[in-house]
């Protein structure tokens, strides 16, 4: 007879001293855990509910400007610093953590329309409708001491006056050139008082421009002739141009996939393009009910934030066709500029009501340092929520957002209009010769043509 029975001595399965950690034994056998799916589903549901309870995205407002905020720039040297320019010519540097102005940069006579920093964080470029470009040396921030409200008023290190008003500026990611947008695209060297190069394609005003983070000589502009134009600084003429049915207010490259960019369009949508293949948009991001004014990608490249004329800030997944999050407050007016901070946890929006607002990028995220155990748990909850997100109950809770009545009604109206338009097209198709009106996907519908 051979016999063995389970025999556990207490010493082997419990800790020796009270200072020791408890011994943990795992057995992943599915037989031990009955009704696994029901348990996971319940957890996912509870997690979705908790997310709703903890969703407090608004961190605070930064008050100080006396006119609408028109543009912002991030400071690559400091996570908690941000520059903002307003319509009355005021430029301020903010300490986000203290939500206070650190210093001001006076000098512009009219509205400041563009702000950019060099990648080393030492140089701030501003431009405005007073036809000047001003270069500022960024002061070393004494972020610890924020009591001196408006500290040393700095003087511009250079002022360049040029022929036309400026609407936007951007600095190269790798290199020391910067470009301004206005009646034409000008390329500047900070050491020269005149642009080293100028580009023009047609006679329309250029509204915004952005350098490619991957290829430092490529830049994209949007212009009031409804075009998106790609430029290469190494050649003497613009490279390609795309004309849409409505104009784009702003463009932004995806920092992790630098061949892709997203354009914020006047027709309430955002269009993601592959720069190599401009004949159709890759994804149309819908959701806003009024013109999209500004767009900025998260440094992870997985999502981007948009600010709109409809007084909301929305966050989209880079592959998502609808917004993942909608932020609004009663006091926030038309949003003119938005920025993701460099760590991807916060958003800053600047709006018509002279305030900068600070938001969390994940509405229910717990801020501060998490214990490894807390982080694990959060990851687990996110994973099961992702897994059960299609179930009606979880989906309903997860998707529900309260909207101001005006926006809610406007969205309904827009939906009705779009449905009517589609139905009309469908009927016309039915009554026309077969094949004469092919169905065009929405990705292509708003594009007129591509010009080489």
């Amino acid at each position, binding site marked *: 007879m051979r016999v*063995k029975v389970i025999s556990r001595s207490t010493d082997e399965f419990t800790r020796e001293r009270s200072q020791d950690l408890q011994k943990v*034994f795992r057995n992943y056998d599915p037989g031990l855990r009955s009704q696994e799916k029901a348990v996971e589903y319940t957890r996912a549901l509870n997690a979705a509910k908790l997310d709703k309870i903890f969703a407090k995205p608004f961190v605070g407002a930064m008050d100080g400007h006396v006119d609408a905020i028109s543009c912002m720039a991030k400071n690559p040297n400091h996570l908690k610093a941000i520059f903002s320019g307003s319509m009355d010519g005021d430029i301020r540097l903010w300490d986000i953590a203290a939500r206070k102005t650190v210093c001001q940069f006076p000098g512009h006579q009219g509205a400041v329309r563009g702000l950019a920093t060099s990648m080393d964080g030492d140089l701030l470029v501003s431009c405005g409708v007073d036809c000047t470009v001003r270069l500022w040396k960024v002061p070393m921030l004494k972020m610890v001491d924020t009591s001196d409200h408006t500290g040393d008023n700095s003087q511009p290190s250079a002022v360049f006056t040029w022929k036309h008003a400026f609407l936007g500026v951007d600095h190269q990611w790798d290199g020391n050139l910067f470009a301004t947008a206005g009646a034409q695209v000008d390329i500047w060297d900070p050491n020269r008082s005149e642009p080293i190069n100028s580009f023009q394609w047609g006679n329309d005003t250029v509204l915004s421009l952005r350098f490619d983070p991957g290829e430092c000589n490529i830049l994209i502009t949007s212009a009031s002739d409804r075009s998106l134009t790609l430029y290469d600084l190494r050649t003497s003429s613009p490279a390609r141009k795309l004309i849409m049915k409505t104009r784009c207010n702003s463009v932004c490259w995806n920092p992790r996939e630098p061949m892709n960019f997203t354009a914020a369009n006047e027709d309430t949508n955002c269009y993601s393009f592959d720069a190599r293949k401009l004949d159709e948009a890759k994804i149309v991001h819908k959701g806003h009910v009024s013109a999209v004014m500004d767009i900025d990608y998260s440094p992870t490249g997985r999502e981007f934030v948009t600010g709109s004329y409809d007084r909301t800030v929305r966050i989209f997944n880079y592959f998502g066709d609808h917004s993942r999050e909608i932020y609004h407050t009663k006091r926030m007016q038309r949003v003119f500029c938005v920025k993701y901070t460099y760590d991807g946890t916060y958003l800053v929006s600047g709006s018509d009501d002279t305030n900068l607002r600070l938001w969390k990028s994940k509405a229910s995220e717990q801020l501060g340092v998490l214990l490894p155990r807390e982080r694990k748990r959060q990851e687990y909850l996110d994973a099961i929520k992702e897994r059960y997100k299609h179930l009606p109950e979880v989906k309903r809770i997860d998707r529900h957002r309260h909207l101001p009545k005006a926006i809610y009604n406007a969205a309904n109206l827009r939906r009705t209009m779009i449905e009517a338009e589609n139905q009309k097209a469908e009927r016309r198709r039915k009554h026309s010769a077969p094949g004469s009106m092919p169905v065009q996907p929405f990705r292509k519908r708003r594009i007129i043509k591509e010009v080489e």
Partner: protein
Amino acid sequence: MASARLDTEKVKQDAQDELEMKVAKYSRGKGADLKVLRDKKLKAQLTAREKLYGKSAKDAAMTDKWLMPTEGGFLEPENDLEKSYRFKQDDVLKEVDLLSSTKPFDMILPVLGPYTIEYTSNGRYMLVGGRKGHLAMMDMLNMDLIKEFQVRETVRDVTFLHNEQLYAVAQKKYPYIYNRHGTEIHCLKEHGKALKLQFLTKQFLLASINSFGQLHYQDVSTGEMVANYRTGLGRTDVMRVNPYNAVIGIGHASGKVTMWKPTSVKPLVTMLCHHGPVTAVAFDRGGHLMATSGVDRKIKIWDLRKYEVVHSYAARAQSLDFSERGLLACSNGSQVEIYRNVGGHDSKLYMKHRMMKGYQVGKVLFRPYEDILGIGHSMGLSSILVPGSGEPNFDTFVNNPMETTKQKREKEVHALLDKLPPETVMLNPNMIATVRAPKKKEKKTKKEIEEEMEDAIEAAKNLERKKKTKGRSKPSKRAKKKEEDVFRAKRPFLEESKEIEGQPGKKQRVGEKVELPKALQRFAKKPQSS
């Protein structure tokens, strides 16, 4: 040399096979068939997900050798002449280690019996209920008596709630809930004279069946009475919860076994299992096997996927229980028999244990995570060693027999956070979060009916008639015949479409639709909203 190489190859092959079996266990069924998907994005996402599942299953299989320190028990004869059921408890006791040999015991309590027993889900605590009112709770790890008291009335059944802090006792008139110290916490009058109690751990539901055959479900965390159903099959005290899906199985005097969930008035399943009353029901941990016994001297093993008998033994049993590793214990009079591999083809008697003559075994119950069978009988309680019955490796976060107070508190809170709603009790618990197969289309749409009708009319019109004599093929007659044919062809379709429209025969009252002029509205029967 060559044979050595062959040997190593064989060893490798064996190891591979073993790993594959383990992977199959951890992968929880087959992966989804993604080839039918046309959405490329979704397909890519799901493929990545499936890959991840496969990887985690493989990881679990690879590491389980290191994570699981204890090996399962066994009892094997040395040669073909020995039989494992011939071994007596004394023989087994001689062979096992010292710690295990202290575990079996016989407690003779002749006055207040017969006794029923119950273990907590981690197997640490035992609750004992004597028919004549004796209640005791014991810590089986240290063999401590925690509390013992008399309720001085009939005790029919006992059951632990989520842990040993609370337990329910079915007494003479009502079930009561006591705490660890024997203090009465609640009297559950709504249940009536309960004969049998069961606790659904994940749902926090206490189920009872009373002498009128009424099944009650009560949520013990909120106190809400979730459901109250009449079984309509008379008085019974045979009730068991299926640990796989928390469905309750009840055996009735008519030989039927019915299965219940808290959200349906009718039983989910009614099966005729025996000719004559059912005496015991037990469910396997895997949820696919059910054992029933009846007074018709049969013990039957059922496959719950097909509702078919797998095995039928000619034996009596007053009480049945499945162990965690699939052994089946049956009690008959003073004898306890244990079968092995009852779901498979080579099921056989594994062990036999005979109590003192004249003892009537009332309840057999395997102790979770131990190789021990607890026996409650007319003269007290016993426990015997059954090697290979218990799950050797516990999971600290599922059930921990060595739990500290702090861990217990933590677990209680987590259990309450993860409390399942009563709707999650269903026959197939894996149905949650799957897509229901599209229903067969039963009703045709109006358009389809019309099309079919037109076809039929066309066919009827084109029917060629034989030429007949004596004026029966006059044009007028032919036209009339044709009309009749068309009408006959039409009729079934007309009826069908009538059904769809939902009896249009009833005319709506005309008066209600008419909008009265404003001046006359005050004379209308109901005040019309303007």
